[in-house]
């Protein structure tokens, strides 16, 4: 048998194989239809590794599992504690964002961001201790403002701390003006446990209504001009000639946490 005769019976399979190769992209979808054949084979191949893992799992003793549970419980507690810290940080961040918004109205070089360290609050004494002192540039007489309005002024400083006298302290006076009609006057803190201010001896016929907003007048050299101070809450007749006006501070002093200590020259931009 010569080589040609030997090859002849194999030509057809070769041609068929070449045809399949030629049509390869078209017949490739056959694989998808034959998945039911392929899947059990793959399962069979993966069986030894699955068996090994199963044996390994069975071999784990109770102590090891208990140790794992303890570890996971401990981790869970740590994560919960961390979450609480993060929540507190988030609240703090929101307050800082608010105060940052206020800070844009004041020359940056003129303000110092401070936080409340402690509060001294009684009928006759409404003071804060803040966490910034003379080392940070805080000086006696500087005005302090919060997110919404004026808080008070610095009356004492140490190296790391300063004492702030609240505008609602009975010994504190502030020069203010009515935003609606520019009537200027002086407000004083009231000697109660409430955070309130009062205006005495206003002429009876003066135009003041409940809800009027009073802002700093800028006349006393302590506070920058135009910052909100308080809103009129009550207008009563002291006698036939004078009015007694009560005001609620714009700044929510009960919830105060951060504030800005500003220079006397810290005029709004």
């Amino acid at each position, binding site marked *: 048998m010569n080589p040609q005769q*030997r*090859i002849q*019976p*194999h030509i057809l*399979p*070769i041609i*068929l*194989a*070449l*045809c*399949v*190769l*030629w*049509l*390869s992209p078209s*017949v*490739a979808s*056959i*694989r998808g239809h*034959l998945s039911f054949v*392929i899947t059990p*084979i*793959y399962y*069979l*191949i993966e069986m030894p590794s699955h068996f090994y893992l199963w044996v390994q799992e069975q071999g784990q003793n109770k102590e090891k599992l208990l140790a794992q549970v303890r570890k996971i419980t401990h981790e869970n507690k740590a994560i919960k504690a961390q979450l609480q810290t993060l929540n507190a940080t988030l609240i703090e961040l929101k307050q800082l964002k608010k105060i940052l918004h206020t800070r844009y109205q004041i020359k940056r070089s003129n303000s110092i961001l401070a936080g409340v360290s402690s509060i001294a609050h009684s009928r006759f004494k409404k003071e804060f201790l803040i966490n910034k002192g003379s080392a940070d540039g805080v000086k006696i007489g500087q005005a302090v403002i919060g997110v919404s309005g004026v808080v008070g002024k610095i009356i004492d400083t140490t190296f790391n701390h300063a004492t702030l006298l609240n505008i609602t302290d009975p010994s504190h006076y502030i020069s203010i003006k009515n935003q609606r009609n520019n009537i200027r006057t002086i407000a004083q803190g009231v000697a109660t446990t409430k955070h309130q201010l009062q205006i005495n001896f206003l002429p009876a016929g003066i135009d003041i209504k409940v809800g009027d907003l009073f802002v700093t007048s800028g006349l006393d050299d302590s506070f920058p001009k135009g910052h909100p101070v308080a809103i009129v809450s009550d207008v009563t007749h002291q006698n036939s000639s004078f009015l007694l006006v009560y005001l609620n501070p714009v700044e929510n002093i009960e919830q105060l946490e951060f504030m800005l200590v500003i220079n006397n020259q810290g005029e709004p931009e």
Partner: protein
Amino acid sequence: MSSRYTLLAKLMAIALILNLLPIFAMAWSPMWLLLGFVYWLVYAQHPHPTYIALLLGLFFDIMLESLMGQNALALIVASIFILQFKQSFIFSNNTTALVYVFGASLVYLTIVYIIQIIHIGAWYFDGWFLLSPITTAILWPIIRIFIDTFPSKNASE
């Protein structure tokens, strides 16, 4: 099903599993399909072995997700190569048979290589590919001894 088909089915099942094992997913891995088929080709008498090669090759193309017809054509050509030396193969010692298997592996690999170059459209060469025919040939005597212990070793009879 006659015993020669039973033997072929067993050989191909083992070859397929070995091919799919991750440990053999290397460039130097032996050509299990070729090893099994060469054994069957030599010791099981079949009137149309290349048609069987075509079917098996296509089956492996599907299973191994290679280009359809690639293994089929390579297996047919490698089978024709072995069939040219079939008588000599049967009566030769292990060393000579090893050389034949190496030759068939090279033929197989070359066909696959050419198809890949045509399919990709770019010339590439990785020297590690040559290790595969060497490992295939080295394994031949071991495979032969191992398969000879099968109860259906006289499949051709």
